[in-house]
Structure formats: structure tokens, C-alpha cells
């Protein structure tokens, strides 16, 4: 039995990728949950907001690269990110002005806003394709690894290697920082509390002098910032492809619902639950089994589900949660 090598293999193939993916889902789910909690509908356009935001970041990255800007080992996309967020936020605020504000004004049922967001989703989807095309784009420049397999093997003398890509490390750091900042904002600042108050009770927030339109704008800006960050980190970690961002909406919603819609803590927890289940279920455990049970040569790869079916994992978790704990792991607002 070789526990050290088994642990390193689990860390390398399951924990690190799932943690990075989980952080990306968590950032996306935070945006979904904020819009659900405060604007009171599920924003189906969130995945494509991520896509168009990332496309803008990529264009800016190319521009900066053409200007010869370099961040050393860090990807230039990090420099383009704040500008990309600002531009995308402007775009989203324009959508709010042109589409959603009308429905708020006529006090339309929230379901109408859900359907409107589906329309916005298709629009953003098309815009992204027009802007940057449908091909797969890699835009991670700078150093590739923080810890490479060879380095790790040389340090530890283990046969199993461990790699930590810089993009994964950046994902974890950026996600951690933005969660910390968001929770601090919501719990400590006057504007953050006003957003929570509006989410709790719109009328009473109005009677307390909170400007509803300001809360709405702030919510869009924060959700967009989170979405563009999630999209850029996902693109750096894997690659950018418009269609993937449309698909990622499913695990993001699963994460938000599993955690409890309307609960930011839940969104983060949900993101990690979905990511870890997806990676664990689609990972071939044969190698690790070989370390733990010497002499066992299983027939198959010990892979529960082929990676093509990874979205089934989100679906199953979603169904189980909705059946047994509809309010999510952390009691959200959907009760």
C-alpha cells in the first residue's frame, strides 16, 4: 500500500482541479444568487454575460499584448479584467435600462423577468459569437506552472507527480479575495446592508429611504463583476469557447440551488459540492486503487461516468436536493 502516492494522485487529479473549478462555479453562482435574492428572478443570461465579459477581456488582452505590455509570470488577462468588468457592467446596465426596468415599472410577475432574461441570453450569445467567433481560444500567457511535476518529484522523491498550474492558483486566490470582499461588503457596509434589506422586504426598504433603483444598479454591477471574473478564470484555466459558457449555466444554477438560492454562503458551498462531485464521478480511479490495493488490477478504469456525461452529475444533485431539501443546504430565500 502506498498512501503517500495515492494522496498526491488524489490531490493532483481531483482536489486541485475540483477546487479551481469549484471556485469558478462559486463566483458564477454568487452572481445568480444575488440577482435571485435582490432582483427576485433567476437570470438565465448569466452564463452568456460571463461569455461576453470574457470575450471583452480576451480582446483587451490581445490589445495589451500588441502594445507589448507584460505582467511577467502573470497572465495579462488579469490586467484586462477590471476594464473588461467595467465595459460588461455598462452593457448589463444598458440591458437593465432597455429590458428589465420596464417590467419592474409595470410590476410584472417575476416569471416575466425570467423569460425576458432568456431573451437577453440569446442576444448576448449571438453578440459574443459576432464579437469573437465560436472557436476555442487560449489566452493564458505568462508562466504555466507554479509547481511542475518534475519539480515536485525532485523535491519529494515520490513516483507520483503533482502539478499546480498558475491559472489554478490565481483562480483560488482571486475567488477567495472576491468572496471575502463580497461578504464584507454585504455584512458591514451601508450599501451592502441596504441591498440585504431590499432583498428582505422591498416596501420596508423604500419606507426606510433606500433608493430601489440604486440597489438594482449595484446588484447588476456586482453580479457582472463576479460573472466576468468567473468567466475569465474559467477561460484561463481551460480555454474560452462561447458554447461552453452557455453550458456552464447548468452547473452554476445547480450550485446556487444546492446551496440555497438567495444565500451567498450557500452559493459558494454549492459551487464546491457540484465541482467536487463532477470531478470525483468522472475521474478514473484505477491508478489510485492501484496504490491503495497493491496487486489489484481492475478490468475497467474505475470511472463512474464518462466525462461527456458530467452535466448529469449537476442534474442528479439538483434533483436530490429539490426532493429532500428544497431550500438548499443553507436555507435560502426559496421557501
Amino acid at each position, binding site marked *: 500500500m502506498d498512501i503517500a502516492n495515492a494522496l498526491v494522485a488524489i490531490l493532483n487529479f481531483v482536489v486541485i482541479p475540483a477546487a479551481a473549478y469549484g471556485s469558478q462555479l462559486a463566483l458564477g453562482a454568487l452572481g445568480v444568487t444575488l440577482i435571485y435574492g435582490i432582483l*427576485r428572478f*433567476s437570470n438565465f443570461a448569466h452564463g452568456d454575460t460571463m461569455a461576453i465579459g470574457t470575450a471583452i477581456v480576451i480582446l483587451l488582452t490581445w490589445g495589451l499584448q500588441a502594445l507589448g505590455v507584460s505582467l511577467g509570470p502573470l497572465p495579462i488577462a488579469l490586467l484586462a479584467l477590471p476594464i473588461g468588468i467595467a465595459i460588461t457592467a455598462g452593457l448589463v446596465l444598458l440591458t437593465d435600462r432597455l429590458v428589465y426596468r420596464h417590467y419592474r415599472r409595470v410590476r410584472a410577475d417575476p416569471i416575466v423577468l425570467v423569460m425576458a432574461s432568456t431573451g437577453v441570453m440569446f442576444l448576448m450569445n449571438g453578440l459574443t459569437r459576432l464579437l469573437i467567433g465560436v472557436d476555442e481560444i487560449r489566452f493564458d500567457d505568462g508562466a504555466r506552472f507554479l509547481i511542475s511535476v518534475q519539480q515536485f518529484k525532485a523535491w519529494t522523491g515520490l513516483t507520483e507527480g503533482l502539478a499546480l498550474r498558475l491559472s489554478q492558483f490565481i483562480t483560488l486566490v482571486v475567488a477567495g479575495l472576491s468572496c471575502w470582499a463580497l461578504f464584507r461588503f454585504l455584512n458591514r457596509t*451601508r450599501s451592502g446592508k441596504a441591498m440585504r434589506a431590499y432583498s428582505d422586504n422591498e*416596501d*420596508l426598504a423604500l419606507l426606510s*429611504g433606500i433608493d430601489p433603483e440604486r440597489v438594482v444598479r449595484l446588484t447588476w454591477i456586482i453580479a457582472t463583476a463576479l460573472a466576468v471574473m468567473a468567466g475569465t478564470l474559467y477561460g484561463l484555466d481551460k480555454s474560452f469557447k462561447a458554447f461552453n459558457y452557455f453550458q456552464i449555466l447548468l452547473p452554476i444554477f445547480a450550485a446556487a440551488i444546492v446551496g440555497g438560492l438567495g444565500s451567498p454562503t450557500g452559493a459558494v458551498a454549492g459551487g464546491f459540492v457540484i465541482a467536487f462531485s463532477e470531478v470525483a464521478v468522472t475521474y478514473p480511479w484505477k491508478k489510485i486503487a492501484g496504490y491503495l490495493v497493491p496487486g489489484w488490477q481492475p478490468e475497467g478504469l474505475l470511472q463512474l461516468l464518462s466525462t461527456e456525461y458530467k452535466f448529469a452529475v449537476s442534474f442528479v444533485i439538483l434533483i436530490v436536493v429539490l426532493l429532500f431539501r428544497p431550500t438548499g443546504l443553507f436555507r435560502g430565500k426559496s421557501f
Partner: protein
Amino acid sequence: MSDGNHGFGGNRGMRDASIVNTAGRGTIDGTRRSGPVRPGPEAAPFLAARDMRGGYGKADILNGCTITVDRGQIAVIVGPNGAGKSTAMKAIFGMLDLREGSVQLDGQDISALNPQDRVRAGMGFVPQTSNVFPSMTVEENLQMGAYIREDDFRDTMDQVYALFPAVAAKRRQAAGELSGGQRQQVAVGRALMTRPKLLMLDEPTAGVSPIVMDELFDRIIEIARTGISILMVEQNARQALEIADVGYVLVQGANRYTDTGAALLANPEVRRTFLGG
């Protein structure tokens, strides 16, 4: 466009909490802009809502109803169900468009103001239900009450805590976890945080025990003694009239009897018709 009851199948999408969030949805139109404030006629009472006519749809609920409150007075509106008591209060607060009539506060005609601006003009309103932010702590509820204030509001918060020691002990607890009576105290406290000149309470004792009700009325008297005018709609008419400086008995959206609380309690006709003997 509203979540009406259309039986099975109708409007199902509104109930699917995994895509729509109807909890805490607003009813007040926050986009309506205020009109100008004009000086009112001289020598009017502190609050003078005169000849109010209006309702929600075509039919009027208020038919020429007049409510006035002087500074530091406690005014109570009582009457049978459907008499328009709460509607009168909402009209005074600007949550209802009036066809006729005017609302005057502290010498200013504020008939054209929206509810938000009436709060800034010095009105505090405690709705009957959903009157706290349930997921926020007691302290945060009070902070939100003071949202429009730029100055240091800690002394006002201390006053509120002194007035309601029971909620002071629970300042770090979520308001939604409190008992009905304590929640009502938080609701009144939140409204007091704006330092209103007129505090309006819509059935503050609905659903609380008689002991809590007595205590709440005691607190309301204390608040009135600090110079804040109180306007209150009450179901528990007898107890409310006992503390009222002036009482209004509304019937079908119009004033039926207006007198001091004690006089109304002594009036045999009022007793027989509205107070159950």
C-alpha cells in the same frame, strides 16, 4: 399581472421558487416622483388630512374622511371591518392616490409627495405585517431605519433600546427569529430611528397577547410624551381609545364620530354599535 388564484395550472410559474423569488416583493410604486410641497393654510393642526376621497380601483373606499392630529397627541382610528381605517392611513402616507382632499404636515401641504419623501418630511410608518427585515439582526434593522440620516444616530438607537429593553438584549439576533411582540417592538424602533415627527402605526397589536399589548400601549404613551404625534389604527378599539387623546370612528370611509377617547368610550351609542356593549 398579479399572483391571483386561478386554480390548478394557472400561474404556476409564479410559485416555482427555484426560478422566481416572491418573498418580500414590494407593492409600493417606487418609481413615482414627488410633486412640489406648498405652504398650507395657517393655524392648522400638526397633521391635517382633509376630505380624503379615493380607493384602489374605480370604487372609492374613502368618502370624505378627515383626520387631524396635534403635536404630541395620540389619535386612534377605529371602526368596523372594511371601514377604510388602514386605507385612510395609507392615503395619509401617500401609498394611495387621492382623487380629492389634501394632506398637510407641520404647516406644509405634502399631498404631492411620494411615500419615500414623506418619510424625509417627518412621517414614520409601521405597517401591520412584514414590518421588519427578517434576515437582518435587530441592530441592522434599526440601522436601516436610520438610513436617511447622515448624522450620528447612536443616541437615537440607545433611546430605542432604553424604550424596548427586551429587544436590546437580542440586538445581535435576526429579527425574523423574534416573537410577535418583540418583532412589533423592532418595527416601532425602526420607524423611530428616522426621528419622525409623526409616527403612524397600522394595527400594532394585531396578533400579540394582551399583556404584550398593554406594554406596547405604555411604550406608545411614552413616545407621545417626547413630543411625537401618534396616529394609530386599532382593532382592539376599547384599549386603544383608553389611551387616545382623540378618537375617530370611521364607517364606510367617512367620519361617524370624532371625540376624545374617553368621551367615545362613554358614548352609549358608540359603545353599543362599535365596542360590543
